[in-house]
């Protein structure tokens, strides 16, 4: 078992003929993900890699292939429109990889997606992987292994660093989820924590946060109230100065709020085991499993 994606996932890739879309569609196929369709307006009727049919619209793709999940690699100016199109076509889980979507576009499309009972992961995220069954996005498959640790993170490569430590030490993962570094995102820490708590295949949860905003503090409160599984946490950006945006649009300390200290304190209050360094995940997850 796992959360959000599994062997039943039937994936449509929006932007499959683009540079990033085609590269990652190939990687997902190689991993064994059921990539059932691609969408690029104007290229309907083509076939990708000799086996994946390409359609003009997501609606056409869903009708022909029963796709239930979408992943988006279209350029930022068109990405919010692509999200809305997938939601309108009845897709229930959308993963937006695209970086650089204007925030006002997201503010408009998020309620549109929710009204259609659809879950959006991202944007500006690495996607997710349920090792051994499905990879949707760009997380390298070879650094993951099937197992019982659920991981949720704001970032991409920091996730790889931590997952790599786990896998090398024989600790596999149920699902690794990157929620994205933008200020407005579709799925937050709490959504993923709830799913891991309810997932019988997950025993321990790892949460990788960063400076900026209050999502980690709220997640910590949720852990205290609702999560009965052990949680291990990390906050990146302890050395970040105030008022400067650290790459991610959301990673900015404004005023007294959003600092690493504030977040770590919230973690400790909630009984979350705090990692000082990425490598500490091995020992803390090991201790939690015992």
């Amino acid at each position: 078992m796992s959360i959000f994606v599994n062997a039943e996932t039937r994936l449509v890739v929006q932007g499959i003929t683009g540079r990033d879309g085609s590269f990652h569609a190939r990687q997902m196929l190689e991993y064994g993900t059921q990539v059932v369709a691609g969408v690029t307006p104007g290229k309907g009727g083509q076939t990708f890699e000799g086996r994946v049919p390409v359609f003009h619209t997501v609606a056409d793709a869903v009708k022909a292939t029963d796709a239930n999940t979408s992943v988006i690699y279209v350029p930022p100016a068109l990405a919010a429109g692509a999200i809305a199109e997938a939601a309108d076509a009845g897709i229930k889980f959308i993963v937006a990889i695209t970086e650089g979507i204007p925030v006002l576009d997201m503010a408009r499309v998020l309620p549109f997606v929710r009204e259609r009972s659809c879950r959006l992961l991202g944007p500006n995220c690495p996607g997710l992987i349920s090792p051994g069954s499905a990879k949707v996005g760009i997380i390298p498959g070879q650094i993951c292994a099937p197992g019982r640790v659920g991981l949720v993170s704001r970032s991409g490569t920091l996730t790889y660093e931590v997952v790599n430590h786990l896998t090398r030490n024989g600790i596999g993962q149920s699902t690794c989820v990157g929620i994205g570094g933008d200020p407005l995102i579709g799925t937050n820490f709490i959504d993923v924590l709830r799913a891991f708590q309810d997932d019988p295949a997950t025993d321990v949860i790892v949460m990788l946060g960063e400076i900026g905003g209050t999502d980690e503090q709220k997640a910590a409160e949720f852990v205290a109230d609702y999560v009965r599984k052990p949680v291990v946490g990390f906050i990146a950006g302890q050395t970040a100065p105030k008022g400067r945006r650290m790459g991610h649009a959301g990673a900015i300390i404004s005023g007294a709020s959003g600092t690493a200290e504030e977040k770590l304190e919230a973690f400790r209050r909630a009984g979350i085991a705090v990692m000082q360094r990425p490598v500490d995940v091995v020992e803390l997850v090991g201790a939690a499993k015992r």
Partner: protein
Amino acid sequence: MNLHEYQARDLLRTAGIPVPEGGVATSPDQVEAIARRLGGTVVVKAQVHAGGRGKAGGVKLARDPGEARKAGTAILGMQIKGLVVEKVLVVPAADIASESYLGLIMDRESQRPVFMVSAAGGVDIEEVAAKTPEKITRLPVDPRYGLLAHQALGLGLVLYQDFQQARAAAAIMQQLYGVFVANGASLAEINPLVTTAAGQVLALDAKISIDDNELDRRPDLAALRDESAEEPSEVAARKAGLSFIKLDGDVGCVVNGAGLAMATMDLVKFYGGQPANFLDIGGSSNPEKVVSALRIITADRNVKAILFNIFGGITRTDDVANGIVTATRQFKVDLPIVIRLTGTNEAEAFRILEAVGMRALSDMDEAVKQVVALARGAAAKGGAA
């Protein structure tokens, strides 16, 4: 991207918001001429992207054109938080009866633009928010409908008991919302919004930040960027497609991914060092970016040692290795470099580096410990010499 006050005022004025007359000057002559045109007492204000202008002496009152000229001479060319003042705004000193705060920000929590209004204006609103949050009224706006008339009037009545003034403030709020949406702002603020002795409602100072993600599709907004008001190394980094922030330490860091870049800085500190910068080379790597990154980092004289920390996913570690080799051929790097590479094409990357006598590590902690020791050793040697 932050706009200067004078640029923000122009956007407000274009939208119909009442803003006092004024002018922008780059020389004391121009300051004097504007003061003469405006007549009466004026305020001369430094146009830099730094808080605390007033405390730094960058805002001066002048009673006549002669005093204005003197104020201009004093402020133009002065440094505020390391930034040289190249422009001043000259505005008439308003006859203020009351000051309020009016702000519109993109709020992460409600995922909507949120209006914040407070009768406690003219001061640091973050301080008000932290100490007396009850003095701020918040209203999330549904971006599909915008700020509705009754909502605006409700907020206006929070600020003013006088109905005409409340209605004037409501009109300004709807116009401010229009400016926010039309320009892809992440923040638009009028502080203070004042009433004059004659009862007029005016926007006295304005601050607007544009969402960086809008700039690609809005060249008109991108053109408002003032590079002279930014750290030169950060301008160079942006042009090279790098995300860079200069810090005060001596360990230069080149990392792929923002989260890992922050975690790397933290680990440098953990092992007793001080990071010299935040630098994210981004996802799809090309060797050129690595060359630019090395140029920017080596230009900082505080840097004693350089760390590469690359976890290859989309980023190919062989591209990064090629970039390091190219850079060290193009210009002499006198500083010790510690390279940590792992992930996509790492065997090839190690081979490329070994061919030129460089060595890479695969463990992040080991690499950070080494670079911190090298920086410390160099600092000790420098101190003895």
